[in-house]
């Protein structure tokens, strides 16, 4: 489709508005991260100010803001990375076969089983925290990566199963049958044909699942301890009892978003799928 000049103008206007809509709060956070304490609370708000790196320095333990020095933020960061990555990987291992079975195989109770998986998303976290706490305590899963990765499956597994299922279903079954008759075993067909074809969708759902795990708060708070608390809990710890360390919190948020952004940009072209399936549809 050729775009007319007027339409193109409209499109860019729309994109500009969208950009502002998304970036305005983000800009505010970034600005806040470079503000001194007094600038953060200034009335009216300050848009021009002398930037300070104190917040960032303090995050990396190189400086001091208020009472807080060298926080353990970096270890929160590492914990989140391990937890989110681990959860997504485990979800793939557990979920991919299930997703494929739901997409391709015919069996009794398929739909109800698939829905049951989805229904785990409905479980309100608050109801299971107390029983889980007790169980984790007994099984020595409290304050372990394993324990948290397991409970994060509540977030990532249903998502991955359902997204991957629909991506698998998008792939015409005939392509798989063709590969089978061309002499490839089921496993080879899956890895040579199905997975590469579903890759964009799979990549997109992995990134989203990663982000959802990264953003989780309540499980990390309740079931994580000294060694495993994720970055979301760390961010909130800047809400001290006597004052909120807005500058530190903003700087920490900026830092926390960076790995996600890198991840997202590196798979950006997969995020919006639709390059490969053109020929078969």
């Amino acid at each position, binding site marked *: 489709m050729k775009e007319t000049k007027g339409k193109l103008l409209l499109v860019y206007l729309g994109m500009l508005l969208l950009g502002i809509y998304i970036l305005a709060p983000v800009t505010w956070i970034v600005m806040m991260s470079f503000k001194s304490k007094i600038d953060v609370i200034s*009335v009216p708000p300050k848009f021009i100010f002398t930037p300070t790196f104190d917040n960032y320095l303090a995050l990396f333990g190189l400086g001091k803001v208020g009472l807080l020095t060298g926080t353990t933020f970096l270890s929160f960061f590492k914990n989140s990375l391990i937890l989110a990555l681990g959860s997504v990987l485990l979800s793939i291992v557990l979920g991919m076969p299930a997703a494929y*079975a739901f997409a391709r195989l015919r069996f009794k109770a398929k739909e109800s089983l698939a829905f049951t998986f989805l229904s*785990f998303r409905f479980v309100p976290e608050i109801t299971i925290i107390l029983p889980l706490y007790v169980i984790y305590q007994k099984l020595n899963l409290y304050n372990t990566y394993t324990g948290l990765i397991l409970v994060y499956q509540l977030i990532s597994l249903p998502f991955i199963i359902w997204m991957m299922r629909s991506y698998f279903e998008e792939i015409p079954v005939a392509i798989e049958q063709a590969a089978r008759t061309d002499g490839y075993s089921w496993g080879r067909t899956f890895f040579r044909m199905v997975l590469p074809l579903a890759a964009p969708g799979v990549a997109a759902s992995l990134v989203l699942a990663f982000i959802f795990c990264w953003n989780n708060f309540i499980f990390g708070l309740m079931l994580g301890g000294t060694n495993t608390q994720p970055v979301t809990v760390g961010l909130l710890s800047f809400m001290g009892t006597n004052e909120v360390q807005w500058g530190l919190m903003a700087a920490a948020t900026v830092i926390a978003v960076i790995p996600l952004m890198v991840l997202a940009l590196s798979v950006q072209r997969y995020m*919006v799928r639709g390059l490969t399936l053109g020929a078969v549809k």
Partner: protein
Amino acid sequence: MTVTSLSPSNSSAAPPAVHKRTDWLPVIMTAPATLALIGILYPFAIAVYYSFTNYRIVSKTYKVVGFQNYVRMFSNADFWEAMGNTLMFAAAALLFELALGFLIALLLNRSVPGVGLMRALLLLPLMVPPVISGMMWKTMLASSSGPVNYIFGLGNYAWFANPWSARFVVIFIEVWSSTPFVALVLLSGLQSLPKAPFEAAQVDGANAWFILNRLMLPMLKPFILIVLLFRVVDVIKLFDIVFATTSGGPMFTTTTIPILVYKEVFKSYTLGSATAKVLMLWVINYVISFWLASRWRKTAASIR
């Protein structure tokens, strides 16, 4: 008139071989995920049990009280107000997210320079944890130190103090942080649509409304349904943003069921009756999702 023999000459008289295979493949493939989730089902079952007890987490004993928690819940005005808020927020947020997400998807569904960048930008709000985005918006909307009032010249309007603007703002923040997800899914839906019907419609001179309403929306339906399926659960469980901005006030106007229950557990300690309330959300989620999921299966099947 002779009819040629229906069976090949060499076929035996014996009955045809029967291949009774128990198909273990589905079982094997779904087993790992099932096992993992049964682990979660167990504490959930305990929670359901609690909802039939008068369990206070700061007392040493408790007993089963049958449906008392449920019965009392239904005659509790606070519960109904929170339930009303929950459903109202969910409906409003979904509506805005779908509409806005669809517009964004339409906007970014073209190949002009800069679109790639915009698609990447779209991910940003998703990456700010909801509780943090709630706090950030609270500072942005602060009556005198917030940039929003300052830029738009709104004086010192207190967004969170007026019951209706507080509701609006909570929904707005939720929309800000979740619309990108909706837009992404719908965008990939748009990208997967076949080009031919649209070109044909353009050749036929169909107007934009026709193309949208009769071609695009029906074909996007599975994507709309799946995005609803994932969003509806989250908006019904809406907690973080409310917690970080209004903690349920002013009065009860932004108190959702999760907020109500959270306070009940940690301030009143009555875990039993709190669990009963939150299980109602589970039921609602279940019903809505079940309906959406079956619609999705149907639509997806009819399109394929």
